[in-house]
């Protein structure tokens, strides 16, 4: 190309540049659209909720609080003196002479008036009056009453009057603002004149009235069923409010307290209150009700009850405490006295996020339904905790196990450690050696001492080198063979299995015996019970055992294939192919839970090696995901029962550990993690899981009592959910274990002590080489050497 030519080309290029620049601009525009796609907007959290702060109580335990309109209140406890706390918080004790001889009286109820006068219901320790003592001894513990005026002068109060039933106790004593005493017995409401004890009965009640409030001249008395409005001046019962009754009926369990406040003083809540007028009572009052679910507001005489504070994240929500008294303060705050001598003040705080503060991080490699369920339950019980459950790999996406582990290790090394780790498919020893896991002996000791857990199973998890336990399985599978007749006699390992299959083969020359369409299946069924035996004490691989294993497996494979000629096997594999994809099945999910629609051609198999996965399904019809033969045979009305039993490979008493839970050493919330661990191990959690989701195959719980409870839950209770419907819609009824079978199951759980954990490196090597041995590429010896070689490198590292 001559110079001119090139320049020409380049020149032309210059003019051409403008159009290509246009395309470049277009390209840039397209690219920035892509960029926009990447940003993620910050998710805004709803702000503002009610929180509470504890109020320091004067010394002594207080069980009664009388709120006064001006924000001050009286406190009283059975073994303390009446204490007055003014609006600023200073407390003054009232010392009455009557109080001093406290030791002679056992005080039960008390009622305090605004001016400090009080009435006590008590029983003297030493009876003077024989007749009363007789009454008392006869179990009718009738109270005596004493009135103490504000000065401290006391005189006995003997309620009498034509409507007054002598025998009943006045359990609720309340003074109105005008200082009149109103008392309620189990079914009657009285007004008692404190001077002479004159009691006139006002109205009958269905239950024991527990709270009484006064609005000007209308009294509201509430028992656990309904609220009674009583017009004090006219002296007659007014018609009640159905809304209030319904609310009281549904919220009185766990403690319901109420108080009244003038609407005008409740500045902020006033203007949005509905303008309802109760006839004659002048609706200037707001009734506040506090119970476990929160604080509610009822406009006197109105027809709606609104919730203004959520009890969840405050002391109200705490199941251990019960609210005893409620006081509405001026600035929309509330003061609450709880059982257990605990008082709080609830205030509204804009800055607090509506979300809980503490966070519990739970990690597992794959999604485990039970753990998520337990997390949600734990969160419901601990409203101030957010349980964040992360999984390394979520089903469909494509992060491989090594990548997920790499991500986890990065976070562990960088210090961002989860609180609880579920180590299914993970190498527990490695994390234990590196000090990531916390030893659980301390926590487990009480469980083991009083025999709650199966000791052998927990001991099975003990590390050989450090003699400590770092992880405990929540559920286990037990090996179980199942066949139409007694092929497997004793429990002496692999040769017994081979002998059994030979027996079955002689009986049924045609078709499969063990139902293993692919080489992988023979390995799947036998590795779990043999792998634990392959590692010697010092951790090295036991070559002969591995060779013996491969020889036995080869024999099994030949036996199973003997039933087919070449073409027959191919055809059989073909018709299994569409529901069963061995290629992408790796050891992680050999737990027999792959989608296996073998029910159709089940009839041809006579001996099944599987794992028992659901406790509450009877032995006679063992439902092992892969081998629900019984159900099939039952339908074929075979006369003889299905026989079953435990089998062993080279290792005996093997149990398959599932949901191995461990706690992290540098967890951010160690005591919360411990609490979660104990919640997981609690009987309540185990039972709830089974009651709520009976049709699941998470395994047999390691808690003795829960296992027996679950097994005892009668079949009917599960009603419609019993039975297993396979994809083609055939419904297999489950069979309920008989008593003798239950004992057999408990015995198996007792002596299972050898732990098998899937997903280790040895298992993967053994599996791959095993397939090559069965395909004839390698002899069993070569196979064993191959595995040894590979493991050598791993050990070497």
């Amino acid at each position: 190309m001559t110079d001119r030519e090139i320049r020409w080309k380049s020149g032309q290029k210059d003019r051409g540049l403008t159009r290509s620049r246009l395309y470049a601009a277009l390209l840039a525009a397209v690219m920035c659209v892509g960029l926009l796609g990447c940003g993620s907007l910050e998710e805004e959290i709803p702000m503002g909720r009610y929180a509470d702060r504890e109020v320091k109580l004067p010394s002594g335990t207080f069980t009664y609080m009388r709120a006064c309109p001006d924000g001050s209140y009286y406190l009283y406890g059975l073994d303390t003196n009446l204490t007055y706390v003014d609006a600023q918080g200073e407390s003054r004790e009232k010392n009455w002479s009557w109080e001093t001889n406290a030791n002679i009286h056992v005080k039960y109820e008390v009622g305090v008036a605004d001016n400090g006068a009080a009435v006590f219901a008590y029983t003297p320790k030493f009876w003077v009056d024989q007749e009363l003592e007789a009454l008392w001894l006869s179990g009718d513990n009738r109270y005596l009453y004493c009135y103490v005026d504000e000065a401290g002068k006391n005189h006995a109060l003997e309620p009498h009057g034509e409507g007054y039933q002598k025998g009943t106790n006045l359990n609720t004593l309340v003074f109105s603002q005008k200082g009149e005493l109103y008392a309620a017995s189990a079914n009657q409401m009285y007004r008692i004149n404190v001077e002479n004890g004159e009691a006139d009965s006002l109205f009958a009640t269905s239950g024991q009235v527990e709270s009484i409030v006064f609005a000007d001249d209308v009294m509201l008395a509430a028992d656990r069923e309904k609220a009674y409005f009583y017009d004090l001046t006219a002296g007659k019962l007014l018609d009640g409010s159905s809304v209030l009754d319904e609310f009281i009926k549904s919220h009185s369990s766990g403690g319901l307290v109420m108080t009244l406040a003038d609407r005008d003083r409740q500045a902020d809540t006033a203007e949005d209150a509905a303008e309802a007028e109760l006839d004659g009572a002048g609706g200037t009052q707001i009734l506040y009700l506090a119970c476990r679910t929160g604080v509610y507001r009822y406009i006197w005489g109105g027809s709606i009850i609104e919730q203004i504070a959520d009890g969840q994240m405050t002391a109200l929500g705490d199941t251990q405490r019960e609210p005893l008294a409620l006081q509405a303060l001026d600035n929309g705050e509330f003061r609450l006295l709880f059982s257990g001598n605990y008082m709080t003040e609830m205030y509204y705080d804009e800055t607090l996020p509506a979300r809980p503060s503490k966070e519990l991080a739970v990690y597992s490699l794959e999604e485990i339904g039970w753990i998520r369920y337990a997390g949600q339950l734990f969160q419901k019980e601990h409203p101030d905790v957010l349980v964040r459950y992360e999984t390394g790999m979520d089903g469909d996406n494509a992060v491989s196990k090594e990548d997920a582990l790499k991500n986890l290790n990065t976070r562990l090394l960088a210090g961002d450690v989860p609180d609880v780790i579920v180590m299914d498919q993970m190498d527990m020893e490695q994390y234990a050696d590196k000090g990531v896991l916390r030893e659980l002996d301390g926590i487990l000791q009480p469980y083991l001492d009083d025999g709650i857990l199966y000791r052998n199973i927990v001991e099975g998890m003990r590390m050989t080198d450090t003699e400590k336990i770092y992880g405990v399985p929540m559920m286990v599978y037990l090996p179980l063979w199942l066949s139409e007749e007694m092929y497997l006699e004793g429990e002496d390992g692999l040769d017994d299995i081979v002998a059994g299959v030979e027996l079955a083969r002689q009986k049924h020359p045609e078709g499969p015996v063990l139902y293993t369409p692919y080489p992988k299946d023979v390995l799947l069924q036998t590795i779990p019970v043999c792998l634990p035996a392959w590692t010697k004490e010092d951790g090295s691989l036991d070559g002969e055992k591995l060779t013996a294993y491969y020889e036995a497996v080869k024999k099994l494979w030949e036996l199973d294939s003997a039933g087919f000629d070449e073409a027959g096997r191919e055809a059989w594999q073909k018709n299994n192919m569409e529901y069963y994809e061995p290629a992408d099945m790796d050891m992680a999910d050999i737990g027999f839970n792959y989608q296996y629609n073998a029910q159709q051609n089940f009839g041809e198999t006579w001996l099944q090696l599987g794992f028992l996965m659901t406790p509450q399904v009877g032995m006679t019809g063992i439902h092992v995901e892969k081998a629900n033969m019984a159900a099939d045979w039952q339908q074929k009305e075979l006369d003889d029962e299905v026989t079953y039993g435990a089998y062993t490979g080279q290792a005996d008493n093997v149990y398959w550990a599932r949901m191995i839970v461990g706690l992290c050493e540098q967890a951010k919330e160690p005591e919360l993690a411990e609490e979660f661990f104990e919640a997981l191990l609690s009987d309540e959690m185990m039972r709830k899981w089974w009651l709520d989701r009976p049709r699941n195959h998470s395994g047999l719980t390691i808690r003795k009592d829960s296992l027996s409870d679950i097994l005892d839950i009668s079949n009917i209770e599960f009603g419609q959910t019993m039975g297993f419907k396979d994809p083609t819609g055939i419904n297999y009824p489950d069979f309920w274990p008989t008593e003798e079978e239950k004992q057999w199951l408990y015995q198996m759980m007792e002596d299972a002590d050898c732990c098998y954990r899937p997903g280790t490196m040895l298992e993967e090597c053994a599996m791959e080489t095993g397939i090559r041995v069965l395909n004839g590429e390698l002899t069993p010896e070569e196979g064993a050497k191959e595995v040894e070689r590979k493991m050598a490198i791993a050990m070497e590292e």
Partner: protein
Amino acid sequence: MRKKIRVWFATGICAAAAALICAPLLMIPSGSLMDSVEMRRILAPILGEGKGFAVWHLIPFYPTIGHFYRLLIESPAFYQLFWNTVGMTAAILAGQLVVGLPSAWAFAAFRFRGRDFLFGLYVVLMLLPFQVMLLPQYIVLQKLQLYNHPAAVILPAIFSTFPVFIMYRGFTQIEGEILEAARLDGAGEMQIFLQIGLPLGKMGIQAAIVLSFLEYWNLVEQPMAFLEEQAMWPLSLYLPQIAVSQAGFAFAVAVMVLIPALFVFALGQDALEEGIAYIGVKT
């Protein structure tokens, strides 16, 4: 005449080499048109389900565009990831130009103590495998609050030493005298860089762009480590673990990934050719 034979001989060999390299790639378009049943049947031996050897039909017996339909029409996930990848790669390339170019120029045009040592260090950092850098970079990103954000992949890539290394080669073609002459004429460093450096190093820059594109278009390790939210993932993570049952779909994805790459090659090639021609004229 001899010259013609030699040319023919050369094209023959190169064509053979190109054919050999592309042969396996032909499996991708053919695979993308094959439905999963046929795929399973011909790959049965590999899956351990049959005897004999697997065979590959370059022209599928039962072709179907089902995979493309599922990929391009049915679910918008592909596009979400596609634009993520485009955005990320564009940002990285732009960033590398803005940052890498001056560094490369600095190495090429200036003499300063420890230049060679620093350049050697750059090369070593380029060579180090990502596994090693995973943890420390994670800590750095965590501190910069960049974890789980596209910048966690973009920033480290922008400051990668790979483009610097390649662009440096482009600049070394320029002899020192021209620079000295330009400096004598009183040209500022920036002017020298823009007037002389850029045009001369154009070839190195375009090579760097193409090679960087190749590098970051199929990036796997970094996004998997630093991006938790799937919505930010690049295309390469859409199907990193392909089971045979999804092979057809994976091949379809591969086809869609190759198309933009083809354009970039062609354009990059073009620019390269031009750069080469341009340089030829200059010197």
